[in-house]
């Protein structure tokens, strides 16, 4: 129990009178890069929302850094990228405003944003290559760009653990490679990543462990599925940034501390 980032034991989630998750036992250790895989409707999003205490559990227990979600106070240690098609809200908000809201768990109510806040937002914007769109309304960006805004919001909070629900859905391959480079930097510092994906793509070499869900049950927990010749895949080499490539040059300057 000690030291785990997320611990779920005997987890069961019922939604609309239907068991969406059954008998889930899952322990995520610091430094893990865990991919949650499975077909549509298998319960991937529900699992990571339950890990964060966003859906109630019908049975079992789940803990974040040793506390139940209701008792957990150190929310600046986790960053969540929800599965969304677009950045929401009925009033326009600039890309920068949305990304800056990821700092909220680190800010105190009566103090204005600090220099450190602004610097972290700048780095997060650079990491997803949207620094030049910072002042545009987020809802006028393309779908994949909006997805990158949501990733930047989580990056801006500089959490110890990232929980990302399909962060690469709709994101082009250059940006996926950029995300992989960012995450490899972060995990090298011992940060933890739990991510849902259908196509691992350039993220694949980072993954240390995979959990496969099928109709609400874990059917595989262990080594990530290795497609043959994985190292020959074009995505593989993108993980190591080289400064000539403008997409990854932005990443080389990403420094989360």
């Amino acid at each position, binding site marked *: 129990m000690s030291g785990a980032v997320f611990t779920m034991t005997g987890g069961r989630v019922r939604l609309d009178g239907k068991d969406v998750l059954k008998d889930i036992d899952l322990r995520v250790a610091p430094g893990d890069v865990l991919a949650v895989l499975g077909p549509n409707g298998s319960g991937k999003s529900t699992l990571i*929302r339950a890990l*964060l*205490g*966003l859906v109630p559990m019908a049975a079992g227990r789940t803990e974040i850094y040793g506390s139940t979600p209701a008792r*957990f*106070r150190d*929310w*600046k240690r*986790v960053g*969540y990228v*929800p599965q*969304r098609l677009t*950045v*929401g*809200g*009925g*009033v*326009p*908000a*600039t890309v*920068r*405003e*949305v990304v800056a*809201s*990821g700092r*909220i*768990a680190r*800010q105190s*109510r*009566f103090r204005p944003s600090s220099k450190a806040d602004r610097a972290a937002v700048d780095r997060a914007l650079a990491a997803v290559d949207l620094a*030049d*769109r910072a*002042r*545009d*309304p987020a809802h006028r*960006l*393309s779908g994949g*760009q909006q997805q990158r805004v949501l990733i930047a*919001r989580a990056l801006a*909070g500089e959490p110890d653990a990232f*929980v990302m629900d399909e962060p690469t859905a709709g994101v082009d391959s250059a940006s996926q490679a950029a995300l992989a480079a960012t995450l490899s930097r972060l995990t090298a510092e011992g940060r933890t990543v739990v991510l849902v994906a259908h196509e691992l793509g350039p993220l694949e070499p980072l993954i240390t462990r995979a959990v496969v869900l099928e109709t609400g049950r874990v059917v595989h927990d262990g080594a990530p599925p290795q497609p043959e010749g994985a190292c020959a895949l074009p995505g593989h080499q993108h993980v190591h940034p080289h400064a000539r490539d403008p997409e990854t040059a932005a990443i080389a300057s990403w420094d989360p501390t």
Partner: protein
Amino acid sequence: MIEILQFDFMRVALVLAVLMGLTAPAIGTFIVQRRLALLGDGIGHVALTGVGFGLLTSTSPILGAVVVSALGAVAIEVLRARSRTGGDVALALLFYGGLSGGVILTSLSSGNGSGLQAYLFGSIASVSRGDLYVVMGLAIAVLAIVVVFGRELFLLCQDEEVARASGLPVRFLSLLIAVTAAVTVVIAMRAIGLLLVSALMVVPVAAAQQLTRGFKSTMLVAMAIGVLSAVAGLVGSFEYSVPPGPSIVMFAMTVFVAAVLGGILMRRRGRPDDQKAEVTG
């Protein structure tokens, strides 16, 4: 314009117009962002019962309205959070009950419904200096809440799940929005009337977002439009002897139409940074 200021009630009313022009669009920006544009309408209907209660018991209608509309706002928020489907009908019942209760209580207290029109559509002369001090206090409280909790309210209205996963007290903040909206309704109720009060929360925001690109700028422009509409509408109401509520709302609507046209022109001409964005994006 100058001679208007000779009348004491007009000076009081203009101060009130500035206060409600600032507060209603400020809280309205969060309400529109959360897609709850009708929340103010609901609270306005419920507040009428509070007014009727205050009149019947010969206590202050303002205090009655504050208490009842705050309770109504909490009820609306609880219904909204609890039920995704049945909440709709429950809200409607609350609106009808609030309006009917208010009309019955006011009629009982005055014997006829003559005072009612002033509460439904506003009245310039009805605001006493004593009322004004209460309203000033309420307005300062609303603006302080927007400043202190603004960042948290922004994330709540933008993305409730991420707000929860950031450790924000989501239930408390939701109630805070509802109660602050209720207080704003009471601030504006004397001058604009309970049936149109939420227009001042929504129309300036809708107008502002035609011209702006960010949340903060939308709020600030909406507050400017709110003050302009409230003051101009009040003066118009005095000049042409029409109730102030409809006059203020018609002025805000005019600004909205102008903003839509202005927004189209602005986009057609293309701002320099828009063009740059198209090249890189």
